């Protein structure tokens, strides 16, 4: 016990209640019902998925609710080969940005039911939801996206969203 003290444990825990807010609550309610909800800006008319309630371009409330379809396009992707703490899926797997049809903002989703070497930009995909009794107000309601079988989207149709 003669060594000087050089380190100090400073473990800290803080407990919060996270409030989703009006807009996100609508998104979460949609997920609970097995559908995607978009919100349209009154000025630029863009439709945001998983919006926090404002148009990040115009700073206006996105009050108009738009129900979005189950289908979309892979705008870009990566193949995850790196294990990390808390990983729930076997590597390698595909993580992609998905632009739902009718939306102007992409979001991140898993792509499955396709060999790793066949993933590509422009791939048309559809959401696979969990069983109806497992649906909840969470993105975990979407199990993953899989190829829809449609022809690939033209690059021009999604180049603005990269």
């Amino acid at each position, binding site marked *: 016990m003669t060594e*000087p003290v050089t380190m100090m444990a*400073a473990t800290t825990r803080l407990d919060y209640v996270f409030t989703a807010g009006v807009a996100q609550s609508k998104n979460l309610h949609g997920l*609970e019902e097995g559908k995607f909800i978009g919100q349209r800006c009154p000025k630029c008319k863009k439709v945001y998925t998983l919006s926090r309630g404002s148009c990040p371009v115009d700073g206006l409330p996105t009050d108009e609710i738009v129900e979005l379809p189950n289908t979309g396009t892979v705008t870009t992707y990566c193949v995850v080969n790196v294990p990390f703490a808390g990983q729930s899926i076997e590597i390698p797997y595909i993580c992609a940005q998905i632009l739902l049809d009718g939306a102007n903002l992409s979001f991140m989703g898993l792509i499955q039911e396709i060999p790793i070497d066949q993933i590509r930009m422009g791939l048309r995909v559809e959401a696979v939801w969990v069983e109806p009794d497992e649906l909840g107000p969470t993105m975990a309601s979407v199990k993953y996206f899989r190829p829809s079988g449609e022809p690939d989207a033209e690059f021009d149709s999604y180049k603005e969203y990269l």
Partner: protein
Amino acid sequence: MAEGTNYSADHVLEYPYVRSVGPVVGAFLTGLRDGKIVGIRGTGGKVVVPPTEYDPDTGEETSGMVDVGPEGTVTSWSWVPHPRPKHPLTTPFAWVLVRFDGADTSFLHVMPASGPDEVHTGMRVRPEFAPEADRVGHVNDIRHFVPVDAAS
């Protein structure tokens, strides 16, 4: 849930930090582990306890550790009738600012008492250390303060 519900969720943040303490803070924590109180000399000759790398008055570098206390004087206090979950004590206690004998600044810690009438500015106190085997170099190596005349 019904449409129009405002969703909320529990959210926990944990920071498993381990901090490097440096030579000055380290000397103080080492002192606590060894059951003594050390301070550092500031530029004007003031003794700073708990020690900082700089003089709180001038900002200049401090140097020269000095032993102080372990007895000291309460310079201010407040009384907590209902301790919070993370407070060091679970029963009513006083926060005390203690100026150790030989020090020119005060150190914050806690002192249990049966009521606020037992605490006053100017009272003489001393630290009650945790058993040697439990001390790790942390402010909680001092369990709490007690009046100087209290039995060990």
